[in-house]
């Protein structure tokens, strides 16, 4: 791969709750597309602290997707609600430092509906590709 190709590669980090979908989904992903996906499995999505999201951007991600269980399906009762609030806050922080908050997205998913989850991931990939790389230098 040439340098230009490497630098034009888009990287998306996906934080997800361990219970939101099984590991198999990560193998079904869009490997043909030119995108670098990094899955980070968490025991509960409420563990996705502000700084984890920011550090994903720091370490080269062009986008971050947070996938959590449905609110009523959260095993830890309020984990999904907490994650949602955190993501909303980090979006504001990103906006303050003039990073497009659309680079960060959040969805509730269900382990019973893997197709829907795959669709969300694919759309997130397209979204980040459209926005482009975080740093263009």
């Amino acid at each position: 791969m040439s340098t230009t190709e490497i630098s034009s590669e888009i990287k998306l980090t996906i934080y997800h709750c361990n219970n939101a979908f099984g590991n198999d989904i990560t193998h079904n992903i869009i490997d043909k597309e030119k995108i670098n996906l990094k899955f980070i499995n968490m025991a509960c999505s409420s563990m996705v602290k502000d700084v984890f999201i920011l550090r994903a951007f720091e370490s080269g991600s062009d986008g971050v997707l947070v996938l959590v269980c449905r609110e009523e399906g959260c095993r830890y009762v309020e984990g999904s609600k907490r994650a949602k609030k955190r993501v909303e806050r980090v979006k504001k922080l990103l906006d303050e430092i003039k990073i497009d908050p659309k680079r960060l997205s959040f969805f509730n998913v269900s382990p019973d509906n893997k197709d829907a989850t795959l669709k969300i991931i694919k759309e997130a990939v397209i979204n980040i590709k459209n926005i482009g790389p975080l740093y263009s230098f």
Partner: protein
Amino acid sequence: MIVGEQKPITEIIEIIAPYKQLLILGCGTCVKTCFAGGEDEVATLASMIRLAFKKDSKEIKIAEQTVERQCENEFIQEAAQNIAKNDAILSLACGAGVQAIAKRFPKVPVLPGINTTFIGIQEQHGIFTEECQGCGNCGLATFGAICPITRCSKKLLNGPCGGSQNGKCEVNANIECAWQLIIDRLTQLGQLSNLRTYIPPKNWRTSISGGPRKLIREDHII
């Protein structure tokens, strides 16, 4: 506890602009509890600054540390080595913490990363309320442990005024009338007769109006 909130990032970026190597120093007590200056906030702020600088192709090195309390020397000294290695300190403590660091390290610029707001409590998770203005002569025994200086919009010591409606303050319907609260509580305690005591005009010399205050405990000075 002292309640504070982090300054807007734009202001922080402006005040740190002259420095190339910055220590963000958190405080693990009051401001950690109000989500403004503990380890998590230090890490988040450091990350935001790095991202913002990188975006503008500017360079900065950021060290992170949080001490238990920035207002106590023994904890401050834990940061001494780190302080010596940096151009400036961005303190995420209250104003007392910022000044405590500045007094001990005269050659290092110390910058405030927090707006210190009030002495208060965590009413519920994520909601902080002001409860005391440190007047220096506490009268809570008379007022059923509800402070009219802090919680009555007019600071009335012989309240209520005539404007309270349905338990709310006439200044702002979102504020509970402190005097309604005082009367309700004194009634519950069987101490409503406290209100028969006329409270004379307060001597504010014990408050900040009397100038900077100092407390000396001879028995603790060696």
